[in-house]
């Protein structure tokens, strides 16, 4: 294993997490540390000081975590490449955990500051504004923009199906960071096409995320409704574009992994590019969204004792609110109203689906007795997973349609 490669693989996610944590209060000026503040107090020296000391704390935590890992790695306490990469993942997870603890602490400090300054009374607690046509005009890129994704998936699956007979009886299904094969599976329709199924589920999830961006709450500045609606549109459209490009890259990447594992059966050296490219694209885009978000933060919106619904400044729990998708208070993006059962479905549905995919790894298709074409083997669990996926897809589409109507 190339030492350099190992370092890059460990360092890039770690740095991304560190940067994301540090930039969180700078990305959401309207709600520093998940607390809403009056529009004219957003650059208050006390808030600035909090942001700065928070950034320092996170940086210090990152340096300490990195040092511990470097020490453990160089003293040889942890040996073997796989264990060392685990160490890198461990450092990243530790940083996330510590970062969240620090965030919660600063969230408390911010609440105290708000109370001391008596800002709650000076907030816009009275006026709410909305644009009636906001969600009807095309805010996000439509579903047709995902056709290229489907074309790529279909092409990958098509090639795999055509070459099925010429593939060896065992195929590599697992690689380590080095690109060497660590696990093999017996050739079945499930194992050959499992990456295509994951591609498909990913596309469905991305279509769904794109759709939630369109329908999530658009709360406007009651004093500048037009400008704030325009800024909101611009922001959502570029986020939608990001999702489109990012998911397409991921799909291409998975197609490439499939091609290598089926037809080349080795992966030396290419692993770094394969795993880093989407991360780098995401990083660049984040910077862009970050800037746009700052531009948007000049607008005010209603904040009638919303603070108490944001648990720890991060989790939104408000049974009174009909909204399912709301904008995050810290950082960039959207989150769900955890007080609504449908929101839980949205959050855990995709995770369960992905977890079920390995079940498809059994022989779910058998040749028809006539020898022409295939049919499902209903005695396999995987078959039912596939059928369930189809049902969920159809149900999801119907649900989306209902959401638009009354």
């Amino acid at each position, binding site marked *: 294993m190339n030492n350099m490669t190992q370092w890059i693989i460990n360092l890039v996610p770690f740095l991304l997490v560190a940067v994301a944590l540090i930039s969180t209060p700078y990305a959401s000026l309207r709600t520093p540390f998940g607390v809403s503040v009056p529009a004219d107090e957003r650059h208050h020296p006390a808030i600035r000081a909090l942001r700065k000391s928070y950034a320092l704390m996170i940086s210090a935590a990152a340096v300490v975590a990195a040092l511990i890992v470097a020490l453990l790695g160089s003293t040889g306490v942890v040996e073997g490449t796989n264990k060392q990469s685990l160490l890198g993942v461990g450092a990243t997870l530790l940083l996330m955990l510590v970062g969240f603890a620090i965030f919660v602490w600063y969230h408390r400090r911010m609440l105290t500051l708000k109370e001391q300054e008596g800002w709650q009374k000076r907030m816009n607690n009275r006026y*709410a*504004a*909305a644009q*009636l*046509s906001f969600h009807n005009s095309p805010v996000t890129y439509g579903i047709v923009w995902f056709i290229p994704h489907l074309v790529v998936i279909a092409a990958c699956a098509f090639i795999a199906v055509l070459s099925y007979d010429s593939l060896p009886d065992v195929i590599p299904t697992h690689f380590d960071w080095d690109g060497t094969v660590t696990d093999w599976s017996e050739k079945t329709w499930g194992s050959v096409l499992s990456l295509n199924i994951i591609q498909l589920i990913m596309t469905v999830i991305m279509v769904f995320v794109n759709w939630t961006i369109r*329908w999530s709450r658009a709360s406007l500045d009651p004093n500048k409704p037009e400008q704030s609606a325009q800024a909101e549109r611009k922001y959502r459209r570029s986020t939608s574009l990001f999702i489109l490009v990012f998911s397409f890259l991921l799909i291409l990447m998975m197609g490439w992994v499939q091609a290598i594992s089926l037809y080349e059966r080795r992966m030396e050296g290419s692993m770094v590019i394969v795993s880093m490219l989407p991360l780098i694209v995401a990083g660049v885009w984040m910077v862009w969204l970050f800037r746009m978000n700052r531009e948007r933060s000049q607008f005010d919106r209603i904040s009638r004792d919303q603070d108490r619904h944001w648990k720890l400044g991060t989790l939104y729990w408000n049974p009174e609110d009909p909204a399912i998708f709301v904008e995050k208070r810290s950082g960039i993006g959207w989150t769900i109203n955890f007080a609504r059962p449908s929101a839980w479905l949205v959050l855990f549905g995709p995770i369960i689906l992905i977890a079920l995919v390995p079940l498809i790894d059994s022989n779910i298709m058998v040749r028809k007795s006539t020898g022409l074409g295939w049919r499902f083997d209903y005695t396999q669990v995987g078959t039912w997973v596939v059928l369930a996926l189809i049902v969920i897809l159809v149900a999801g589409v119907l649900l989306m349609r209902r959401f*638009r109507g009354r």
Partner: protein
Amino acid sequence: MFVRIDLESDVPIYTQLTNQIMEGIATGELQPGEALPSVRSLAADLGINLHTVNKAYTILKDSGFIQIHRQKGAVVQSGGMPPADDAYKERLAEALRPMAAESLGRGMSLEDWLTICRASFEQLKAKREGRPI
């Protein structure tokens, strides 16, 4: 079209919503056949209860300003607005009566009262015809 709700006003929220949408339709800012947001989405955008929006839509539907389709949801009445028939005039007179009473009680003259009525009417009419007010 934008709506703006005052959550601390004495005027109920559903009335504010009804009034603003009706005004939008009267001035042509909302065109016949134009789709209105779903109850859930408008309630979410304004951060108000679903029933409040539902009530406003029901009132607008009953007075003939919007239609509610099963598939398309709420749309601005496209088959011609309800006419100002005798039944409507009767309702209008009934609604104006307490206002006239209050003005009279405060010692307002008929001319002043009519001036105010004329001003609102002409403002909306000018907006509808795209003239400066």
